């Protein structure tokens, strides 16, 4: 209820429309003037600042531990592990979602998101080219590279 009254205050002071709430609240407006900058910044994101940086909420990591984890996931992802970047983004989804929260964790998560999109775009374009192009595009090499032929050639289905 406190939040709503502040928002009404802010909106009424911005638009200058005399509403019921504004009439009631305006006399106290000067007292609460110093609260306005904080209200303005917090209402720029659509909801309250999240308490937990991980998607598991209270079952996940605290903010201090999260920095180390986010950094490690981001670093290990460079070893050709885009899935780890994706897991990083999924795990720290509240950090991605609310742009002004958790300033220490955010660079790693945003980096993971960008890395994952770039890598998967490249991989997808190569895979689709290979699948659609077929022998017309690659010629003899297509038969050598396609997985089911490779499996037959090296007898990979008999390992286990």
């Amino acid at each position: 209820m406190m939040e709503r009254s502040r928002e009404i205050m802010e909106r009424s002071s911005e638009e200058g429309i005399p509403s019921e709430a504004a009439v009631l609240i305006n006399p106290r407006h000067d007292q609460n003037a110093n609260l306005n900058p904080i209200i303005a910044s917090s209402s720029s994101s659509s909801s309250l600042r999240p308490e937990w940086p991980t998607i598991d909420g209270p079952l996940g990591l605290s903010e201090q531990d999260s920095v180390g984890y986010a950094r490690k996931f981001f670093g290990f992802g460079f070893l050709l592990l885009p899935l780890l970047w994706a897991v990083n983004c999924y795990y720290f989804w509240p950090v991605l979602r609310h742009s002004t929260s958790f300033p220490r964790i955010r660079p790693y998560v945003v980096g993971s998101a960008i890395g994952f999109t770039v890598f998967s775009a490249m991989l997808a374009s190569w895979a689709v080219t290979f699948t659609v192009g077929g022998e017309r595009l690659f010629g003899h090499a297509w038969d050598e590279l396609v997985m089911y032929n490779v499996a037959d050639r090296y007898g990979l289905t008999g390992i286990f």
Partner: protein
Amino acid sequence: MDRNQRNTSILHTLGEEIVRIITPVSICMLSVVILVSILDTDSSISSSISTIATIAYTEDTSDSEWDKFKGALLNSLVFVAVVTAVTFLLVLLFYFNCTKFLKYYMGFSAFLVLGFMGGEIGIFLIQVFKFAIDCFTYLLLLLNFAIVGVFAVFMSKFPIFVTQSYMVVIGVLTAYWFTMLPEWTTWVLLVAMALYDLAAVLLPGGPLRLLVELAISRDEDIPALVYEARPIFDPGSNTTVQRRTWRDRDRRGNPESQTTGPQVGSETVGSSQNVEEGNVHELSVPLIERVRDHGLQPENLGIEGIGLGSLGAIKLGLGDFIFYSVLVGRAAMYDFMTVYACYLAIIAGLGITLILLALYQKALPALPVSVLLGVLFYVLTRVFLEEFVVQCSSKLLMF
């Protein structure tokens, strides 16, 4: 008022907890049934595998039924003997505090299952669907999948959903591999494993019971592959529902280790006041991977049994997932009618086990009731129900 609150909260949370453990078991069974129906490798591949489970006798379709049964019995005895030996080895290692080695071994076996088994099943699927993927992309995706899986199994703090999915996937892959065994061997093996589980947990000298007692006395977690459900977030008291666990921090400094009956201490997290009765017990049964002709491959650390995890949620061993799915997968190799019957039997068995758990407050194995019910239902369906249903539908009487 408080008692009313507690009663409603038990009802409110218990159903949700049961659903949260039955859902992944059902998903695992469904995936194995789908894989078995799609891939249909019964005839060609199964005759050529050589594993610990078929070391004594290789089933031949031309043998008489009594010979097949004897051979299957021999195979199962060998398998159970190896499993017992490895479990005692596990108890020994745990006794000498080699927990790090066990953890690394767990990660390694997860990598083997996800990488090699997953890769092989992926190749089967590609061959069946003629999906034109190239080897570099496939290898990259497979490596990603396997390595992130090792992270999920290894690290304690990982997204819960991802860890749970990987546990189910490991269960599916191992169960699918087990369904490639010959038919009689599979059924006798299932019954043998159920009886072994019963003996190993309840008998005083059983390896799993020793392991549980060691873990309780040391207040430690056994490093093993276990599926842990997400704990219920109780809206009433705004904390997770806590259960009295075996490994409670006893505030009164009581150094005795109790092996029967729950400890009296209560665990409080923050302002939690909802303490209910429960159990914790973790049982481990190693799973044996396939053996090549020239040597033994390292073994998986599976787990069987029901218990409570460190967050107070229900925990089910991966070995249970695997053997339930093997049962249903084998039933799927005959017909879908047996699948439905066995699925219902297994879920009923799981429910009974949960009730017994709440009743006896002791270490209980999760395999025996479900597997024995499942096998019974399979036999009954195959002998009686199928005849009835086929006759009815062909005479256009029902269905």
